């Protein structure tokens, strides 16, 4: 029994046929799951965790992000314009981002203090990536549906964490 020591002959048994079948199934499942995620970039390279990031200087970045916000807060960002967002306890550098549907936008995202989370919700969408101090994420987003999206902070960053929000309006 499993609670008491015993000689090798007593427990070292062959695997039964059912056990062998199950080992094969378990391995097959792991292989199917692994193969799916590895081949996904070939199937759909446009729904991926962004891979581009670079270190940045917070002071310089803050200025760029504030500059971006002072021009575009609440105004349509024209195509081919890079978007700079800085996270800080407890707000985003821009409060309303207006984007055009179906356009590729290049985003830059970084934190000026602690770790934050960048989560987009709304219109049936949920997407999250992390916002790190000292490391700037660079990625492309293209909204296929018009409507209102919310950005909430999804990594605990202190007492004001729950109120750290921003709006993305996507217009047709």
């Amino acid at each position, binding site marked *: 029994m499993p609670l008491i020591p015993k000689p090798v002959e007593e427990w070292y048994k062959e695997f039964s046929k059912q056990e062998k079948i199950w080992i094969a199934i378990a391995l097959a499942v792991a292989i199917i799951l692994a193969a799916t995620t*590895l081949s996904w970039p070939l199937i759909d390279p446009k729904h991926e965790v962004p891979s581009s990031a670079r270190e940045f200087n917070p002071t310089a970045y803050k200025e760029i992000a504030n500059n971006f916000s002072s021009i575009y807060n609440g105004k349509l960002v024209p195509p081919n314009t890079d978007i700079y967002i800085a996270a800080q306890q407890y707000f985003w550098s821009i409060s309303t981002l207006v984007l055009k549907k179906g356009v590729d936008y290049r985003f830059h995202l970084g934190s000026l203090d602690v770790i934050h989370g960048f989560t987009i919700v709304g219109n049936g969408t949920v997407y999250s990536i992390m916002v790190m101090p000292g490391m700037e994420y660079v990625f492309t987003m293209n909204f296929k549906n018009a409507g209102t999206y919310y950005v909430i902070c999804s990594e605990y960053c202190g007492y004001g964490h729950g109120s750290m929000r921003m709006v993305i309006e996507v217009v047709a």
Partner: protein
Amino acid sequence: MSDYEVSSFGGLKIYRTTKHLIIANLILALISISIGGIAAIFVASGRSAVPSLINFLGINNINYYQWLTFHGMNMLIFWILWAEIAILYFASSVLLNYPIYGYRIAWFAFAAMLYGQITVEYSILTGNADVLFTAYPPLAANDLFYIGYAIFVFGAGIAVVLFFLTIYYAKINEAYKGSLPLVTWGAAIAGIIALTVVFQGALTLIYTLAWRLGLTSMNVMAYRWFFWGLGHDAQYVNVVATIAVLYALLAIGTGLTAAKFINERYAKVAFALAALFVIPGIGHHILVDPGFSTVLKQASGSVGSHFLSVPTLLHAFALTGALEATIRASGHTSLFGWLRRIPWTNPAIAATLFALISMGIGGITAQPQTTLQPNLNYHNTLWVPGHFHLMVAGGTTLAFMAFIYYALPILTSRRLYSTKLAKLQIFLFGIGIIILGLVMTILGINGDPRRDFINPSDLLPAWSLTPLILLGAGLAIAGGVLFILNVAVTIFTGKKGGNLFDGMITSFEVKNEASISKRGALAICIIVVAILLTVYFLSYWRLETMPELY
């Protein structure tokens, strides 16, 4: 040294030194789960978005995170580790009939853990450590918090080493002959993984302290990798220890009949595979972090984690198959007919099945969230606590609770205070956590964030489900209270003599051992895997409905 009593269960030798140590560890485990449970009331209420309840309990955006830190630390770190140390001592000293090696050092380890815990509790209670159990820098707690955390982990590390030394000395002094029992083997695998946890924990906490003292700068990405080296491996200590306990419960609960139908070699191989695959899984905690390469995320986070599911799947069949064969042997032949004969009023079997169901659901929701692309949709939503409550509360905690119901009488020769309450408790807690886990999972699909004190319904209508959290929480907390009372009363006033396990063991006659089959269990396991694959591919399909991101 030779001071022992012989238990009426299996003639096991219970050394006095061992008994006192295990009971002391269990008392601390009980205290920790009580504190964690009180915090659970505040966390669940705070998260329920029911304003009258939130106001009544005085929860606000400052103390919510204090309660959440308190809950996470006391449940995941303190309760689980105290209980695991007790289980390691049980699996070595009691099952191998040998006193704990170096029991004075074991008391030192106990004192270190206690000191560490008190220090951490003090930091949290005085509002100096609202950083949650992950304590990601540059958010910082006071130094005391890290020192206490480190000392606790250090003490636990000593206890794990003593567990291995006890096995070693039991072997060379011929306290037992033959191979390690399956349960001790499982505990030893948990112990090996625990040593990697202690090592990485020490690294993380020393690094953090050095940063706090101004000796080094803090690389946030490095911290997250080190921290999850500790955090991820620790969860596999839990999974492996839970499974070892489930084998013990199934064997004891069926009056040792099920033991005949467990293929120990198969189970031992599965345990060993867990140790092999655990380290590569670390990467699933940094899947959406900038600065880590996609190759690392894929290899470690996704592919590594998928292979880590293999050993758990193997155990799932070994356990359900052993139960099926046990019931079949007493004369049941149809494919699923044995399911109707499951003795649900047996606490060990009920707990085993609830734990398996809970971990089965949690294991399914684990797959999309450990996979690079679908994880984008689940990361840091309530899906994640939904998953781990199913694993570590519905699985580990429930299994440990039931284990304590059986281990205490073996250790003390005293009967459990109330078998009826134990049965009720397992249902309340099991069903409560499964409801809680499912509600969180559904909210997570809709993007409701974890670790967030907000009134979610003012943002998205789909989040107005949140009050349902209270349903699962209420049942689970009621179950938790019954557990704590029952065990505390047993420790302090349990009655000696009589039938040790009255109403807690179901006996099965073995009628026709030759025709035993486990095809029903195999069929169930295949159905579960089919659901798993369906959920997995649905989550890829869901990815397609999102805006483009790359």
